[in-house]
């Protein structure tokens, strides 16, 4: 039994070594790849504005800060719910990209004239782009994307809080 386990371990280690050698060869010949969003994908929350500029205008953190507390402006957090609970812009609505945008949630969104969507500005930020596109399809014309997302907001020391979503209704949960 012990011999069998050793034989299996030995086989596995040899395969892993072969993979490691191949990986190192790739690393030496090509270098470490950097994350590249697929062609046509819009980096709605990335640091470098791209196609999103034409679809959803960017808003700087300083300008967005001035709109916090304005009843006609709603901040929408498009990250997963667990990340929202660990920290978000004060008073923001949690709305992950696959949320049901019907009923009370939609009424709540339509009550705002301007929506500022944000995420954590990592990678391609597909979910944020998709949410902004869905909101525009639902007739919400003034949807803006917070440039550099939540990290820039927190770094600037602007109001943030943690905990569950106070604005969320049953349909957005």
């Amino acid at each position: 039994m012990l011999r069998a386990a050793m034989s299996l371990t030995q086989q596995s280690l040899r395969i892993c070594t072969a993979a490691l050698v191949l990986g190192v060869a790739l690393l030496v010949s090509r270098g470490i790849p950097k994350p590249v969003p697929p062609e046509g994908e819009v980096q709605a929350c990335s640091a470098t504005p791209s196609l999103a500029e034409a679809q959803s205008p960017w808003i700087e953190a300083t300008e967005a800060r001035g709109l916090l507390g304005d009843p006609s402006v709603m901040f929408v957090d498009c990250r997963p719910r667990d990340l929202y609970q660990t920290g978000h812009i004060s008073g923001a609505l949690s709305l992950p990209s696959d949320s049901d945008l019907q009923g009370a949630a939609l009424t709540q969104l339509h009550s705002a004239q301007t929506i500022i969507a944000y995420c954590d500005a990592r990678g391609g930020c597909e979910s944020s782009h998709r949410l902004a596109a869905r909101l525009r399809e639902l007739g919400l014309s003034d949807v803006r994307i917070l440039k550099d997302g939540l990290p820039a907001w927190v770094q600037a020391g602007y109001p943030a809080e943690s905990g569950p979503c106070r604005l969320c209704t049953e349909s957005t949960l």
Partner: protein
Amino acid sequence: MKIVTWAFCVILAVVFVVAAVPKLIDPGSFANDLLNYRLLPENLVGLVALFVPALELAIAAALLWPRYQRGAALISLVLLVGFAAAMAQARIRGIDLSCGCFGAAFESKVSWLTVARSTLLAAMSAVPLFTLPLSAADARGRQHV
């Protein structure tokens, strides 16, 4: 049973090659898919994007080499269970992303169907792991019995 085991090894080897090649051609897209899972730090995804397809190719070759089939089946099982778990956590956390399973060549969104597919492939890996003889010596022993 031997035919079924070999058939599973061949199917798994083909799947791993089909999965690895697009990732090697376009490692940047695969790194982006990995980043969207929100499981790895940003400075690690590039390295993982290089080593995962390398491991997939090594597993594919070993699955077709009788001497290493069981070891390959074990690594395949662990890798596929890991993939299924990563996709399941993304679904549970509500992260909407491309699975990156076959690189940028065959884009598909993470869903419970992709989780089930990985689980099925993991189950297929268990067949050679538990039915093949442990070593050439064991194989000879079984033939003598």
